């Protein structure tokens, strides 16, 4: 508008002083007025394009450095001396003023340069008057104190009728209230310093909007250097400034988007705040959630004085079916741009009346709703609003907002993708925990406990397991709560009747349908009809709010249910039922294994029970005690044995041993070895022979086994003495009444190895009043520290409460294995009493 060539040429032609207008494009094309042509000298080449060049000290200046070049670069050139090249080639000193002429977007398109020929004694003030009257720039002069004393006519176009009020210090009333304090401070300090001034102020324009205006001013000094006057200009740089802010905003959104990793809410908040920096007074993000609901983030500018409540009233979240601008951006992907919101728009597009009132109250001036598009669909809408005195959104603003909305959409998709990934990872981790837990346990109870521990408390407040009993009803088999006290209360129901198996509701129904089900909320009235009253009461105490019930599928039948419970006020995630469905499927093989294992364990245990001697020898002068304790670790149900029996000749054969491995096959091997020792003892009661028989039995056994054994034959006459052999077995320990301990060491290799067994039998006396303890490695290895284990056994044997106990085997076991043992343990003790029979 200000750089239309014809218009500028007209201005220049009207000036009485020599003046030209130069255009940036085509490059430095100039139009000169008649006064300039006269100044430059005779025109010998009529019609040829004029050339305007300046010089310095007799040499031509580069075009970029001369007054025209500087004005075209956007600099105000105020009354500087320059040397104009005349047509004759000579230079003439002139005073030059240059004014850049800007396009709508703030870029310079042309410059007007006015000259005063110093050789003609024309009043400089007259030049200025000419200049100020005709230049398109906003010009003003101020007195040495900085008070405005004259303005040119352009201000009337800009400020309106009230332009005269700018004079003196009146101009401060036209500055944006947010800026006025620092603008006044800035200006008055500069006036004192007397330096060239440059600043951007927001002036209230006649249309009621504040426009960014660049003010430049320079002191005009007299011969003594004292400031006579300030000469200033103003240029509307609003569009330019906002374009820059948009760029900043885009850069910032770019950074925010790139940095978006974690959280959608956080991302929206950052973007909404960034929009307020330069783009809008209110920003609203509406985001479609995956479940169809709309999440909203509204931020009002601290500059605008609307309360959050007013804003919320004006922009209620779109409901489906509504056709207002946000809904259209959200659902249809349309952009709405209303540069000027007026009463007609409000009446036509905003409903209901309460919302209209809020729009008027906030004084909404301009609005853009842009869809957040990604992969061609809209996942939300970005609404930016300018209110009160802000300038309207123009087309380039709208494009910036569309771009921001698009970037936000991409960022949100990324964040959502990462959230999904994290959720997936959490599920996978859950399964991995479960896998590890299930892999490490073989018993059904262990399997279920492991499953519950992997779930509580992250995915459920607590959990319990119901199993069908032989009558087909559900009984509580196991519970797990992270809180010890609550766990104790719940544990009191373990074993208790839970519900009728044929109920068509709750857990029995889930078991029958074999499909997990979410009970949310728990219907206590319905539950009362089939769940045990006591258990329901406990559930009420526990504040049970909702539950997911998962069927426990065994090898052939449904075994029961796993019930995941959530305290009231906490809820399961939507995806949890799927997770537990998956869990139920993964648990099924583990449960089937556990069933198998339990069967085998039952058989092995029965086998072992049958293999252990039904009764220990009853021999005068001797007391035999034994204990066999199955280990806690179900995997290690093993093949430990002890044996003691009398031969016909009165000698007593003892043996103790351990077949490594677990389950039925270990028990079978153990039984074979023990029988081999018994058989050999009846033929030749020589420990070496008995052990060789045991070795053969092991070697004939198909599996590779690690078997240790100790065998001994006790002669009672004249004094008790034991002859023995050991095959890799922990040495028995003899306690004698004088307080000494003796290890019956004799370290042959374990059974099953092809090795020379040339070792002679060893002998050890068992004085009356002594205690000989035979044991398996479970007694010394329970802490996996053999040295420590042996020390404990020795200490216990020295303790009168053990060596003098009624049942020393049991006492020794309890004294050493305070916390029980992982492994099987067998102990056989032989006490010699004072009296021997002849």
């Amino acid at each position, binding site marked *: 508008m200000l750089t239309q060539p014809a218009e500028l040429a007209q201005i220049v032609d009207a000036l009485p002083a020599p003046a030209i207008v130069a255009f940036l494009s085509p490059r430095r094309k100039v139009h000169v007025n008649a006064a300039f042509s006269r100044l430059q000298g005779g025109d010998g080449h009529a019609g040829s394009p004029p050339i305007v060049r300046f010089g310095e000290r007799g040499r031509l200046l580069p075009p970029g450095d001369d007054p025209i070049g500087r004005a075209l670069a956007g600099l105000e050139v105020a009354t500087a001396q320059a040397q104009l090249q005349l047509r004759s080639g000579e230079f003439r000193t002139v005073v030059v003023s240059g004014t850049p002429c800007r396009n709508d977007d703030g870029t310079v398109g042309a410059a007007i340069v006015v000259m005063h020929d110093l050789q003609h004694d024309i009043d400089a003030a007259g030049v200025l008057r000419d200049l100020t009257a005709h230049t398109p720039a906003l010009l003003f002069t101020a007195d040495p104190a900085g008070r405005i004393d004259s303005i040119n006519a352009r201000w009337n176009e800009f400020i309106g009728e009230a332009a005269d009020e700018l004079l003196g210090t009146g101009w401060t009333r036209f500055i944006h209230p947010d800026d006025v304090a620092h603008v006044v401070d800035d200006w008055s300090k500069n006036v004192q310093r007397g330096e060239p001034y440059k600043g951007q102020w927001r002036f209230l324009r006649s249309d009621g909007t504040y426009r960014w205006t660049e003010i430049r001013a320079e002191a005009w000094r007299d011969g003594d250097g004292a400031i006579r006057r300030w000469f200033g200009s103003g240029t509307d740089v609003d569009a330019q400034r906002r374009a820059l802010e948009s760029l900043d905003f885009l850069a910032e959104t770019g950074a925010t988007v790139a940095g978006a990793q974690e959280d959608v809410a956080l991302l929206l908040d950052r973007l909404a705040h960034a929009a307020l920096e330069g783009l809008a007074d209110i920003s609203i993000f509406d985001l479609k959630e995956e479940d169809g609901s709309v999440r909203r983030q509204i931020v009002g500018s601290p500059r605008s004085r609307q309360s959050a409540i007013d804003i919320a009233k004006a922009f209620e979240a779109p409901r489906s079916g509504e056709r207002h601008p946000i809904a259209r951006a959200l659902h249809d992907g349309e952009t709405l741009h209303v540069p000027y919101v007026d009463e007609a728009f409000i009446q036509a597009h905003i409903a209901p009346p309460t919302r209209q009132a809020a729009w008027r109250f906030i004084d909404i001036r301009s609005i853009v709703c842009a869809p957040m598009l990604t992969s061609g669909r809209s996942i939300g809408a970005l609404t930016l609003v300018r209110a009160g005195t802000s300038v309207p959104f123009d087309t380039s603003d709208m494009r910036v907002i569309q771009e921001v909305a698009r970037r936000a959409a991409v960022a949100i998709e990324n964040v959502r993708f990462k959230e999904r990934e994290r959720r997936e990872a959490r599920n996978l981790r859950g399964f991995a925990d479960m896998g590890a837990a299930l892999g*490490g346990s073989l018993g059904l109870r262990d399997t279920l406990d492991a499953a519950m521990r992997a779930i509580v408390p992250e995915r459920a407040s607590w959990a319990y397991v119901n199993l069908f009993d032989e009558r087909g009803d559900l009984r509580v088999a196991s519970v797990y709560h992270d809180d010890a006290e609550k766990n104790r209360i719940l544990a009191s129901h373990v074993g208790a009747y839970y519900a009728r198996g044929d109920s068509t509701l709750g857990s029995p129904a889930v078991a029958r349908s074999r499909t997990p089900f979410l009970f949310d909320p728990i219907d206590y009235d319905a539950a009362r009809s089939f769940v045990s009253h006591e258990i329901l009461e406990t559930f009420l105490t526990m504040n049970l709010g909702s539950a997911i019930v998962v069927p426990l599928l065994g090898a052939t039948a449904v075994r029961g249910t796993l019930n995941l419970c959530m305290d009231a006020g906490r809820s399961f995630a939507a995806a949890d039922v799927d997770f537990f469905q998956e869990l139920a499927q993964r648990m099924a093989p583990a449960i089937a294994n556990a069933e198998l294992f339990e069967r085998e364990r039952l058989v092995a245990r029965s086998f072992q029970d049958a293999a252990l001697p039904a009764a220990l020898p009853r021999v005068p002068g001797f007391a035999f005690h034994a204990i066999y304790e199955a280990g806690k670790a179900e995997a290690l149900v093993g093949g430990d044995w002890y044996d003691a029996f009398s031969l016909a000749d009165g000698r007593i054969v003892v043996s103790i041993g351990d077949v490594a491995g677990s389950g039925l096959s270990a028990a079978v091997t153990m039984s074979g070895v023990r029988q081999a020792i018994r058989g050999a003892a009846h033929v030749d009661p020589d420990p070496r022979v008995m052990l060789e028989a045991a070795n053969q039995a092991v070697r004939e056994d198909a599996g590779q*086994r*690690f078997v240790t054994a100790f065998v001994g034959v006790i002669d009672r006459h004249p004094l008790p003495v034991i002859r023995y052999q050991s095959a890799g*077995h922990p040495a028995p320990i003899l306690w004698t009444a004088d307080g000494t301990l003796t290890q019956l060491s004799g*370290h042959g290799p*374990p059974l099953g*190895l092809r090795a020379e067994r040339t070792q002679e039998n060893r002998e050890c006396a068992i004085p009356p009043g002594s205690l000989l303890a035979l044991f398996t490695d479970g007694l010394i*290895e329970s802490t996996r520290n*053999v040295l420590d284990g042996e020390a404990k056994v020795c200490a216990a044997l020295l303790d009168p409460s053990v060596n003098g106990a009624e049942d020393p085997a049991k006492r020794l076991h309890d004294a050493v294995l305070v916390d029980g043992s992982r492994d099987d343990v067998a102990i056989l003790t032989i006490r010699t009493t004072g009296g021997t029979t002849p």
Partner: protein
Amino acid sequence: MSEGASYICVALAGEIDLYERERLDAVLDVTERPAVVILDLARTSYLDSSALGAFVSLRERLIDSAGSEVIFAGAGKQVARLFEICGFDQVFARFDSVDAALQHLRVDQGDVERRRLESNPPS
């Protein structure tokens, strides 16, 4: 150094028990004959009877080919006592370290195949 024998050093670290049985069987799977297997127990804190059984089984598999051997190296106090108790000292050679074993066998480090089993820490 036995002519043509394969030398395999298996380092076992941590507690080697039933739960490691599969992995133990895998590292002790030696098909070469004759083979000298050095079990490096410097970082072994515990061996249960199933691990001891695996050593016995390895020895039984190797013993038929002349020049084959299973050797223990670097056992700490605990493991040494375990070996004493179960009579392994009667049948297996034991050295203070792998280096000492190799020196005894007159084998270069470079001629030894290295294997290792790190037991998971007990849960």
